[in-house]
């Protein structure tokens, strides 16, 4: 790294930007509405999974609770931007400034991300003192708590009912822009002093402490930055689909995003992005099969649930055969004959 040119140093980011840009350009040129929607969904997942990677990839601590911040970000934005007619009646528990006002989309998105970030910092403060499996289980408890609170706080969240009529401003290009920012931020973090210290602690916590790394502190920093982008992912999700319920942000979402991270390779930023691209593609193919298609006059249709089963099997195969994920924990390095990443 020391003697690398600036372009060489930021190459891992440029390469990922280029990859996503090519996908979006192809969808724009050749795709119809459906492909457009699939790509937008995937880009929102890129924001979430790269956000997740900022914590999980650098610290090595699995988080089963980060998707909570997606819910927190999504609902915070909905409260500010959605349903001026329904809010005063249905969401009577909201404070008056939210209940009777509707705010602009962009400032609402920003304040929602800030809200998720602050909550993450508070929640993370005790949890980040834990290590290994204890920390993971504690994050899982966070997921359960947020789900139960939001699922029962009827006068604020409509409970488990859907909130509909959310303004839909997130198209493919907005999602691409946010994904690009998230990727750049994740890379900046992992190259920062905090990111490098945390990656050292991931490899050997004892040795890291012995050279002065305050492990809980660095974990909390990563956790909080991670939650900011997952919160952003939640905002994008809500304003992409236009309808949310708290159960959108629970076990299914946790499973699929972690699967993407593991399959791509959770130790590298490239892994997080490749995992989303690979799994989103697989998911879409399987969805087509589930809907049924016709080959030579023969109608083929798979039973429902095949998606989850196949994804589960793929994840198992990756864990057994290629534990480092598709990228093996490497970044896209500057093209040189020696160290070309396989992906």
């Amino acid at each position: 790294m020391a003697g690398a040119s600036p372009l060489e140093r930021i190459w891992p980011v440029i390469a990922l930007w280029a990859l996503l840009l090519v996908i979006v350009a192809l969808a724009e040129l050749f795709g119809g509405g459906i492909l457009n929607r699939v790509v937008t969904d995937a880009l929102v997942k890129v924001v979430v999974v790269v956000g997740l990677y900022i914590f999980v990839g650098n610290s090595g601590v699995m988080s089963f609770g980060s998707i909570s911040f997606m819910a927190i970000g999504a609902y915070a934005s909905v409260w500010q931007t959605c349903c001026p007619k329904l809010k005063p009646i249905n969401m009577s528990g909201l404070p008056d400034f939210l209940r009777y006002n509707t705010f602009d989309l962009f400032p609402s998105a920003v304040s929602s991300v800030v809200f998720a970030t602050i909550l993450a910092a508070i929640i993370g403060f005790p949890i980040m003192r834990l290590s290994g499996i204890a920390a993971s289980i504690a994050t899982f408890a966070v997921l359960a708590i947020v789900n139960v609170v939001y699922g029962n706080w009827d006068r604020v969240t409509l409970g488990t009912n859907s909130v509909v009529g959310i303004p839909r401003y997130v198209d493919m290009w907005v999602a691409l822009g946010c994904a690009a920012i998230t990727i750049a931020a994740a890379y900046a973090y992992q190259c920062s002093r905090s990111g490098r210290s945390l990656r050292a602690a991931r490899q050997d916590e004892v040795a890291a402490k012995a050279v002065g790394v305050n492990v809980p502190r660095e974990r909390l920093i990563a956790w909080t930055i991670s939650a900011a982008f997952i919160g952003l992912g939640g905002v994008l999700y809500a304003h992409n689909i236009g309808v949310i319920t708290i159960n959108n942000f629970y076990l299914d979402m946790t499973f699929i995003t972690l699967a993407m991270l593991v399959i791509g390779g959770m130790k590298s930023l490239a892994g997080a992005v490749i995992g989303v691209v690979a799994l989103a593609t697989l998911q879409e193919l399987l969805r087509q099969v589930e809907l049924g298609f016709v080959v030579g006059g023969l109608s083929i249709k798979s039973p429902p649930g095949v998606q989850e089963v196949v994804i589960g099997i793929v994840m198992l195969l990756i864990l057994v055969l290629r534990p480092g994920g598709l990228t093996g924990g490497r970044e896209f390095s500057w093209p040189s004959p020696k160290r070309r990443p396989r992906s």
Partner: protein
Amino acid sequence: MTRGAARENPGPSTLAARAVSVRFEGLTAVDRISLELQRGEVLGLIGPNGAGKTTLVNVLTGFQVPSEGTIWVVDADSTGWQPHRFARAGVIRTFQNGRLFKEFTVRENLEVAAIGVGLSARKARTRAAEVLDWLGLTARADERTDALSYGDERRVGIARALAAMPRWVLLDEPAAGLNDVECDQLMRTVAAIPERFGCGVLLIEHNMRVVMTVCHRIQVIDFGKTIAAGPPAAIQSDPQVIRAYLGVREQRR
């Protein structure tokens, strides 16, 4: 840099354990040991396997809180500090089994150590380059540490500790597993550390011959107690040391 300033102006310079005991469920690993390490000296800590040497290093670096007694970094009572705080105060250790960051290159191992104690990224790079150069490891700088030979691994362990700006560096059996030639080379390096980096060195060894040549002072422990302390010549001829240390070692084989 700090190093130069440290040499010219040593100031208060003692890392000390005062009457420290460590007990694990009835087993007394360290029994009222006192130890002082000054900057600029090489103190040998010797004793047979299981004598309590590593436990004492754990105590001096915050990895083990003593059951009794206190640890002092200069004039601060640092008993109960977290390990990272000891490190930032300049108390840096190595590990018997290396514990290098395997996914990092040699250079990255050193840089992250310097970053860990608070240096900026740029200063960390300079510091790492200096230490690598001094130890003759520059050619290995961009290799991943899981690809190193055993001897290089040991040296990188020491290099990483030196990159972390130590005021006192605690080397836990740095020569373990090396052959005689490698061992002698390493000891010449260890002997030169105080002069070059302005820090004190605590050298843990169970090989008497090795410590005799490099240490200014030697403290001998056995069964968790100090049985002798003094300059090498005195230790070598101390009948208690010969009886307890060498004698016990023969029996234990």
